[in-house]
């Protein structure tokens, strides 16, 4: 029998069929994540299908608000009120506005386990693959079907395996690695594929670094990012579920068939920057050094975790941010915020002159706050530098790691964090 990738194994298990890449199957969904932007349409759709009936399994639906938090308009408030009432009526767990960004909450609250099939009404749902789950973003109509039925049609994706080796230099992190990969394959280079990240560099990464890798898989068109779960995942989950034990065998077979294998030695990798207006327009930092930054944003589902804040705080400790640069720091969740607070990181940011905001998506959807004006430049640890993503369509966004962002905050222009 032909070997399988981890993605083929999970989708076979969830459909009860022996599936390989390009097969179709009707799969049972383990968890569904609903947030404030795409949730209202999904619930409207579910009501159309079920005639005000119940969701398929209220214990498998997780709701929270993170894009427009706290409500920044009357419409946002009305939407959140509707979602809140729906969650109550249905008995769904709703974290409401209190916890932070969906993709961090799903993981840190233990809603994602290795081998599960998880869907979310957000393209960065692929983040959860860092725990060895098959996780993918869906639209509101598909979410309506999931809420009603608990099942969804899937095409089993082909897999691109990225094998990464070499020890990263100081202040070069997983964001730099994944930006480099996106630059190599292009914004559509992995369309419809599972992006499997493997190799010694990935094995040595902590959960925060791995979550960043998988989070960015969608930026090369991937259906999911996924990493074979190991002891790092098991230890992470033991913090939440002390009895948790990782099952053997949840990895790709030696003879699994891949669409492509890409190998990258990152020992000499420079910090990377995605230059406007495309995430695959990636350059080493040395080619963009000196670009003035009107705003620096450290946060988002990509890079708002404690570990990200820590590397930024190391650079900003005892310093003051550049006079003409606004610096916004947003921890990804309440939990990460408290960790950073207890370690003194938040104090470092505030003393340096940064604005520290409550956990939410912040400027990254271009609709809430922290927006940029026409002609302004944002240097950001988030995931998209599309036109208008952080405000004015005439603004420019450079995507970087937390280390590069902090170094930029210090000098008011893009700087190599290794030199700071």
């Amino acid at each position, binding site marked *: 029998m032909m070997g399988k990738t981890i993605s083929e194994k999970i989708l076979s298990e969830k459909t009860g069929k022996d599936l390989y890449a390009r097969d179709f199957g009707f799969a049972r969904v383990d968890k569904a994540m609903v947030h404030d*932007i*795409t949730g209202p*349409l999904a619930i409207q*759709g579910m009501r*159309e*299908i079920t005639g005000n009936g119940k969701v398929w399994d209220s214990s498998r639906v997780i709701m929270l608000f993170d894009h*427009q938090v706290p409500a*920044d*308009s009357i*419409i*946002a408030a009305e939407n959140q009120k509707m979602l809140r009432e729906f969650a109550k009526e249905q008995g769904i767990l709703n974290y409401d506005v209190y916890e932070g960004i969906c993709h961090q909450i799903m993981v840190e609250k233990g809603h994602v386990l290795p081998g599960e099939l998880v869907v979310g*009404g*957000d*393209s960065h*749902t692929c983040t959860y693959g860092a725990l060895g789950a098959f996780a993918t*973003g*869906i*639209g*509101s*109509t*598909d979410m*309506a*079907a999931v809420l*009603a*039925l608990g099942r969804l049609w899937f095409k089993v994706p082909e897999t691109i395996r990225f094998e990464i080796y070499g020890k990263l230099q100081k202040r070069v992190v997983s964001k730099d690695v994944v930006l480099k990969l996106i630059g190599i394959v292009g*914004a*559509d280079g992995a*369309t*419809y594929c599972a992006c499997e990240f493997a190799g010694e560099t990935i094995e040595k990464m902590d959960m925060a670094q791995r979550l960043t890798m998988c989070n960015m898989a969608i930026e090369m*068109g991937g*259906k999911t990012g996924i990493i074979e779960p190991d002891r790092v995942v098991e230890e992470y989950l033991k913090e939440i579920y002390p009895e948790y034990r990782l099952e053997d065998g949840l990895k790709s077979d030696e003879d699994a068939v891949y669409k492509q294998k890409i190998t990258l030695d990152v020992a000499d990798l420079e910090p990377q920057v995605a230059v406007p207006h*495309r995430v695959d327009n990636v350059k080493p930092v040395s080619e963009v050094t000196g670009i003035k930054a009107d705003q620096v944003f450290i946060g988002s589902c990509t890079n708002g975790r404690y570990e990200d804040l820590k590397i930024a705080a190391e650079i900003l400790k005892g310093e003051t941010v550049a006079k003409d640069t606004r610096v916004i720091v947003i921890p990804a969740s309440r939990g990460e915020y408290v960790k950073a607070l207890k370690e003194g990181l938040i104090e470092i940011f505030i003393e340096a002159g940064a604005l520290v905001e409550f956990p939410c998506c912040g400027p990254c*959807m*271009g*609709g*809430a706050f922290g*927006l940029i004006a026409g002609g302004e430049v944002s240097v950001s640890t988030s995931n*998209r530098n*599309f*036109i*208008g*993503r952080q*405000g004015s*369509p005439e603004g420019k966004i450079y995507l970087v790691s937390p280390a590069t962002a902090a170094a930029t905050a210090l000098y008011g222009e893009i700087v190599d964090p290794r030199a700071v």
Partner: protein
Amino acid sequence: MEVIKGRIWKFGDNIDTDLIAPGKYLGLPYEQLLEHILEPANPDFPKKVQKGDIVIGGKNFGCGSSREQAPRGLKDLGVGAIIAESFARIFFRNCIGIGLPALTSSDISKHFETGHEAEVDLRNGTITNLTTGKTLETSKLPDMMLEILETGGVLEMLKQGKL
């Protein structure tokens, strides 16, 4: 539904969902969001698009966010079909899910310009440029997807017990 006729609106590569449904308007009432669909890519589009018009795109059309407001906005402004060199996955799936035809055609950008008149034949998988007379093949959707489009989307299929 099987033959769609209208004017062409042509766009380039990597038309992302922030260009189609900009984040800063997502928090507005839906009717107001419609006034800004594809506006950053072509300010005339939301003002002048008409029922049956056909959107042409390059590579990776619809990349980015899963926000269904992007394909819905296009459909509700009257767009009859999108033909692109390639689509981002979630956007493509959302299009079919809401009943908006989305087809691929590798040379599409070379043979069509904004303002041309065109006709799309879904079942035969062709698009004809009525201004120049040129006909190109498009992808052919499987019967299942054609049925979803003809029924008016996945929700309608589910309501009618067809899924």
